[in-house]
């Protein structure tokens, strides 16, 4: 480990991989957020048929390995539909579906933590269902959900390394080629691990800061999900 600085030669490549990792994480989280909120609302307020579909979706994505999901989507969609898609699109879509399944659970817990008496109170004021959702349920649920949602951020962020199986050039994949090229796996992977660690730690601090900015006294009491 005398000349650890050799790694700087690959700084550009590593940065490229890191950016890809961050992009995939954000795409997965953002898409998963939308899917998660919608499936949670469907599961709480929807009809029986909708609930069955939502729960089948959630069970499937929570009950199988992300790597298998990535391989399946990447290779099977072109065969089934004839549409060619690249590793980026396939990876992003799979991460969204996967994260949505996990986020649904967090959002459902948070929505149900907004007690029924408040819904009745909103109704008695003459609010429509939509107004109640926008002004009462979601503002509380989104605050309550931040701590468990933080776990999903960490989990998905680190799981993006699974994208290596479909050949996407994210941080882990790039490190692997650098390690193979330089025959110095220890230094390369150690350095990569540190990048993940710093990124996740900084992100947690930011999320924590946001949570403290929007927190409301007493609201956290109901956050035992």
């Amino acid at each position, binding site marked *: 480990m005398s000349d650890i600085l050799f790694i700087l030669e690959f700084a550009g490549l590593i940065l490229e991989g890191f950016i890809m990792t961050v992009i995939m994480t954000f795409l997965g989280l953002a898409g998963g957020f939308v899917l998660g909120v919608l499936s949670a609302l469907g599961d709480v307020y929807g009809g029986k048929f909708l609930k069955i579909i939502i729960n089948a979706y959630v069970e499937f994505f929570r009950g199988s390995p992300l790597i298998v999901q990535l391989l399946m989507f990447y290779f099977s969609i072109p065969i089934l539909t004839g549409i060619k898609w690249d590793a980026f699109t396939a990876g992003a879509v799979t991460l969204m579906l996967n994260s949505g399944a996990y986020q649904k659970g967090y959002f459902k817990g948070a929505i149900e933590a*907004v*007690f029924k*008496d*408040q819904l*009745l*109170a*909103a*109704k*008695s*004021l*003459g*609010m*429509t269902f939509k*107004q109640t959702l926008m*002004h*009462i349920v979601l*503002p*509380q649920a989104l*605050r309550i959900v931040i701590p468990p949602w933080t776990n999903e951020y960490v989990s998905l962020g680190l799981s993006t390394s699974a994208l290596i199986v479909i050949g996407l050039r994210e941080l882990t994949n790039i490190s692997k080629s650098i390690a193979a090229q330089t025959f110095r796996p220890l230094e390369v992977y150690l350095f990569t691990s540190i990048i993940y660690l710093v990124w996740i730690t900084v992100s947690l601090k930011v999320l924590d800061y946001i949570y403290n900015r929007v927190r*409301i*006294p*007493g*609201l956290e*009491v*109901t956050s035992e999900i």
Partner: protein
Amino acid sequence: MADVVLACEGLKKAYGDLMVLKGINFKIEKGQTKVIIGPSGSGKSTFLRVIGLLEPPTDGKVFFEGQDVYSSDMDLNMVRAKIGFVFQEPSLFRHLTALDNVKIGLKVVLGMSEEEATEKAMETLRLVHLEEWAHHYPAQLSGGQQQRVGIARALAMDPDILLFDEPTASLDIELTWEVIDVMKELAEREVTMLVVTHEIGFAKEVADEILFMDDGKFLEWGPPEKVLRNPSTPRAREFLSRLLGGV
């Protein structure tokens, strides 16, 4: 003839096979205060929720200011906005300050501007003696204060009637008084009120009529002195002797 604010005819409500309300006729006129008493499980809360349009009746009709609510094409939410409801649990919106709890209906349902709503909400909080607590969140208020915010939230909408569902049942005795005092002040201002409560002192002092409910029906009704002193049915006599005797 006085204006009837809220009325019902042959009102029935069933949950599955369980018939909770068994055909109720009722009316309340502008400026009146009526108090409903009765054993738990007799259907008092259900009656309030059905006549307050929070739950649809299984059968029968509800009239708001003379109009059949469910057979005309009235906008139910607009009628609900004119019927104030105060619940047993304070049920405030936990992410909003006392002021914002009172404002939200004004803004979202009545479409008031920010300034208008703030002014109206502060004015209403003054009526329940909470203007100093306007910027506190529900968790920072006592049960009695929360309940008074709940009253202000309903009152600010300028409802034609206020319904109270055992507003003091979950409060300590001293907190009960502060809520009851506010309700007495409302009665003096001739706010139309329909109140489910076991605060007999309140009923005696302000009620124009007391109704005794048992097993999904009104068994007895009349002026307080008559119903409280001289109930004609054995069920009411038994209930009142326990309630007043304190045993």
